[in-house]
């Protein structure tokens, strides 16, 4: 049972880590919290579901199309919905609040549209649910593949951030927007790229979880919430921290479900989050002063 919970937690945590990394890139660079983040994930899951059940295309192949489209849509959201707010804002705090409220409205728009199109029912489909034995534990193949994909993309995104010119520019904006402008980085451009990357990662996460998780049109909020918990626990803008915290969160969730009660997972996650906020408001890996 211990090993079972650990492996289930790891596969779940892999996706959490990936999704949280997307959000932390978005928020860290643009300084705008995207509360509609989880809706992008669920929207991708629905698109994959429709394409798979109607045309039988493999979800993993679909990701090749869904992910770039999500990048473009997220970039458009930043460019046409959020930059007008940035131009209007008098202070950083006012901008944060405005963007929060706007993406909150966007959350309802996307969720409402999905409710109208797909209804409020639980949706799932079966793809690659073949049992695989890993260390004496039986897992389904789709979970294992999703975890592997999450790890690969997570590592790729990490190298993109740490080793490339674009990644360095993004990190520079995250650390100091004014300083980044002084060395010739266009912060709006960087924030647009960051939003696109975040949206693409969310769509990938949605594609991966749709193969083994039952989802509804109203579930985006819970993914946003979990990603936010990971982002804040890790320290805002700290991508490697988000990976570690995401994995930890998945494992905690699996252990609570296995040993305590499946109904208490959200409550326990939240208690952990609360404890972190009180002890270290800047996150476990965050710097003390921002």
């Amino acid at each position, binding site marked *: 049972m211990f090993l079972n919970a650990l492996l289930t937690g790891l596969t779940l945590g892999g996706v959490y880590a990936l999704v949280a990394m997307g959000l932390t890139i978005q928020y860290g660079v643009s300084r705008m919290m995207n509360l509609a983040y989880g809706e992008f994930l669920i929207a991708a899951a629905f698109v994959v579901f429709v394409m798979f059940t109607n045309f039988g295309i493999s979800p993993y192949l679909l990701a090749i199309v869904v992910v770039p489209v999500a990048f473009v849509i997220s970039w458009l959201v930043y460019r046409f919905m959020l930059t007008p707010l940035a131009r209007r804002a008098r202070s950083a705090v006012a901008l944060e*609040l405005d963007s929060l409220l706007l993406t909150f*409205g966007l959350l*309802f728009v996307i969720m*409402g549209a999905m409710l109208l199109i797909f209804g409020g029912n639980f949706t799932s489909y079966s793809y690659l649910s073949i049992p695989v034995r890993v260390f004496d534990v039986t897992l389904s193949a789709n979970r294992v593949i999703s975890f592997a994909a999450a790890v690969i993309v997570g590592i790729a995104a990490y190298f993109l951030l740490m080793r490339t010119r674009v990644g360095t520019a993004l990190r520079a904006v995250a650390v100091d927007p004014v300083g980044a402008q002084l060395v010739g980085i266009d912060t709006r451009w960087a924030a647009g790229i960051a939003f696109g990357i975040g949206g693409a990662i969310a769509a990938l996460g949605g594609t991966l979880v749709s193969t083994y998780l039952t989802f509804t049109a109203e579930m985006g909020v*819970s993914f946003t*919430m979990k990603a936010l918990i990971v982002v804040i626990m890790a320290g805002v803008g700290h991508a490697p921290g988000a990976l570690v915290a995401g994995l930890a969160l998945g494992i905690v969730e699996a252990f609570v479900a296995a040993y305590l009660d499946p109904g*208490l997972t959200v409550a326990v996650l939240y*208690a952990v989050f609360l404890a972190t906020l009180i002890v270290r408001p800047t996150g476990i890996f965050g710097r003390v002063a921002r």
Partner: protein
Amino acid sequence: MTKQSAFPYVAVIVATALLALLPYVIGSFGLSFAIATLNFAVVATAWGMFCGPTRYISLASVVFFGAGSYTVAVLGDYVSWPLLLLIAAFVGAAIALIVGLATLRLEGIYFVIFTFGLSEMIRQLATWYEFNITESVGRYVFLDITQEQIYWQLLVLLALLLIGGTVLARSRLGFALRVIGGDEMVARHFGLNPTIAKLCLFMLSSMVIAVAGAIMAPRWTYIDPAIAFNPTLSFQVVIMALLGGMHRIYGPLLGALLMSALFEALGSQFPHAFALLLGLVFIVIVYLLPNGIVGRVEQALARVRNGRADASALVEQRS
């Protein structure tokens, strides 16, 4: 900064007295709409009382509202009604104290996120408790309270809230809170203690919301965690306060009146598109009414006044 005119108090008392006669005029359908509107007005005003001056956006109104409702559902058979309301107020303040101590020294955005998830956690905990410990999900509220009585109680609560809010805005604490909302660092240098001031206000506002939840409980007769802790309430309240403008005590009230009329019209016309419409209204408000209707009107008035001042200055120059 202090205009000590008695006009607001008189206006509130006269309006309350007139509105108290409303149940005799409108039918049962009108009364149920009036109760829903008043409920929104109370919660939105209480929300604005805390969030307006401090600029903390709380998405946890329903936590306090639901706590009030549950107080009635659990203790309704054992305790007299006035005592129930008192207990509800106490429960609301106690939760606010715990939540506030933990979160009010955080930056604004963390507070929003925290409250965003708090209602979810409370609802899950309540469902889990009811399912596993009491082994029945719902509870029945059979109390001898008529719809008219609910209406009058909400009306009195709103009147008290408006008068209290005006007194507060004119007091030293109200001024201190505006300074804190403007710039917390400056407030600290003035020797104010932002955390204590915010905590007091948060408890007051939460108390009122909990009492509103308690008053509304007999209206449902059956409540379960999904009804009492329905997160939509928190979002609706934020929209209302933003639409009206939360820097004035009557802003959220105005927003509540307009939005509950809109919800009523839209909800019956397009029941399936409710979330979509809610979101669109939210986006429109953020773009077009950043300081709410009250802010827009004040801006227009200021422009007219300035225009007149400019014109008269011009006339004086010429003559």
